[in-house]
């Protein structure tokens, strides 16, 4: 089982603050995820397999031509909030 410290470390990397209940919850849940990965590890693969699913005849490169995205307005509409053309996010707090 994942330790309390390990869970807190992962939470910190994900910029999440957890309550006491959540720490216990994620200890169990993340442990199950890791166990599942352990199971998957029994399948014989290697790291190379990761990048071998790409069709060999696919053109790997694109010419360096700048083309502005056509639906720019549509893209910006995905933003929850925009201020001065910038994506507005909650203020970033100092890490503890």
């Amino acid at each position, binding site marked *: 089982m994942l330790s309390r410290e390990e869970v807190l470390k992962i939470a910190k*990397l*994900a*910029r999440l603050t957890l309550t006491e209940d959540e720490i216990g919850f994620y200890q169990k849940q993340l442990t199950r995820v890791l166990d599942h990965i352990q199971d998957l590890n029994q399948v014989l693969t290697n*790291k190379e397999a*990761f*990048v*071998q*699913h*790409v069709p060999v005849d*696919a053109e*790997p*490169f*694109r*010419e*360096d*031509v*700048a*083309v*502005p*995205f056509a639906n*720019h307005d549509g*893209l*910006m509409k*995905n933003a929850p*909030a925009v*201020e*001065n*053309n*910038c*994506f*507005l*996010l*909650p*203020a*970033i707090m*100092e*890490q503890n």
Partner: protein
Amino acid sequence: MSLEKYEAVIGLEVHAQLMTASKMFCRCPNQYGSSPNTNVCPVCTGQPGALPVINKKAMELGVRAAIALNCEIHPESVFARKNYFYPDLPKGYQISQYEKPFCTQGYVVVQLKTGEEKRIGITRIHFEEDAGKSNHEAYGTLVNLNRAGVPLCEIVSEPDMRTAHEAGQYLRALHSILRYADICDGNMEEGNFRCDANISVRPIGTEKFGTKVELKNINSFKFVEKAIEYEVQRQVFAIENGEKIIQQTRSWNSAKNVTEVMREKEQAHDYRYFPEPDLPKLVFSSSWLDKIKKEMPELPQQTSARFKAAFDLSDYDASVLTSSKELAKYFESVVSHSKNGKASANWVMNELLGRLNAVGKEIDLSPVSSTQLAELIAKIDSGEISGKIAKTVFEEMFATSKDASSIIKDKGLVQISDPAALENVIRKVIESNPSQLAEYKAGKVKLLGFFVGQAMKETKGQANPALLNELVKKFLDS
């Protein structure tokens, strides 16, 4: 304090932005200064389902850097995801290279002020995409993704540097090479060439590295040496005071001239690197690599060697004239018009660079163009003006950007090479100095200089010196 008992161990990491038209994995323009979020698309804003496609030109520029820095190029390399959370990283990961970068084991030869050369090893160069930019305001964080996905090469040196000066020279050499080969424009104000330094100190004679401190975002040549020097001293003083060096990230505060602790960052294993599943293995064919090798632009060392051979310049002169691509180009243009390599080198280095330095201008903003300077040099060579007058003319050219010929005409500075005109002056000088004439006639021949000087003064320095000398002697001896 016993600074001299310690030596510094310095390695540098440089992020160089590649000079492409579009971003690394999408077709958005790679353009500085556009209004926020104009150069964005589903790929570089991390929209679900959007897939990256590699920019061929970015790969080419990276390979060029590898060749210029004498690296071993790996025909097969792998992109990797570097995972971390920050608002200016929309995907939650940066596409980079980790276990298999496209090149390793290169070097740069740098010139030291002692006149020696030193070889600084390059550990690796890898491709990665830049992040966006966030501005923190009280009411929230504003994110601009124009820079997100812009192609970078990260160039990691070996910890081969021992002084701030060596680090500064390495950085200058790297900067110059990348600009010569049109890989990176080197603009540090715009953040297109950024440097982090890893610094530790150890007692001289020991092998083991001390605890290293990472110095982030040193964004000007002026600060690199200052910041490193400060940090080395800080570490030595701490050790001498019995303190332990803490592994941390610091930044240079150029207002206070100190380094300060920054927030803690992730350790390498916290980034949970893994091969990028959205991209194929990066494969360079040997014919493509050969083509890039053949089309390599001239590098500073090659230009320097060519200048030395063609214009009979010293090592030092050649290294000054090739210190930037613009300066080398300017000098070549002067020579091609003046047809006098040595004089062109002297004028560019002694007169022009000195004046540019004094007013804090780079060569591309020189008020005197290369053809204008060449014209001035040609006028000295043809005897139209003396070297001394030329300096006065040059001063005026630098101040007004006017051509030499118009200044010479306006100020009446043309060299007097007409014997009849000079003879009149000489006659007048001899007549008004009868006692000196008598002394000369009595055998005090070194008074020749006196008469020449007086006559030169009379012509306001415009007499052709050789002709004047000859005529004065003829008159005195007649």
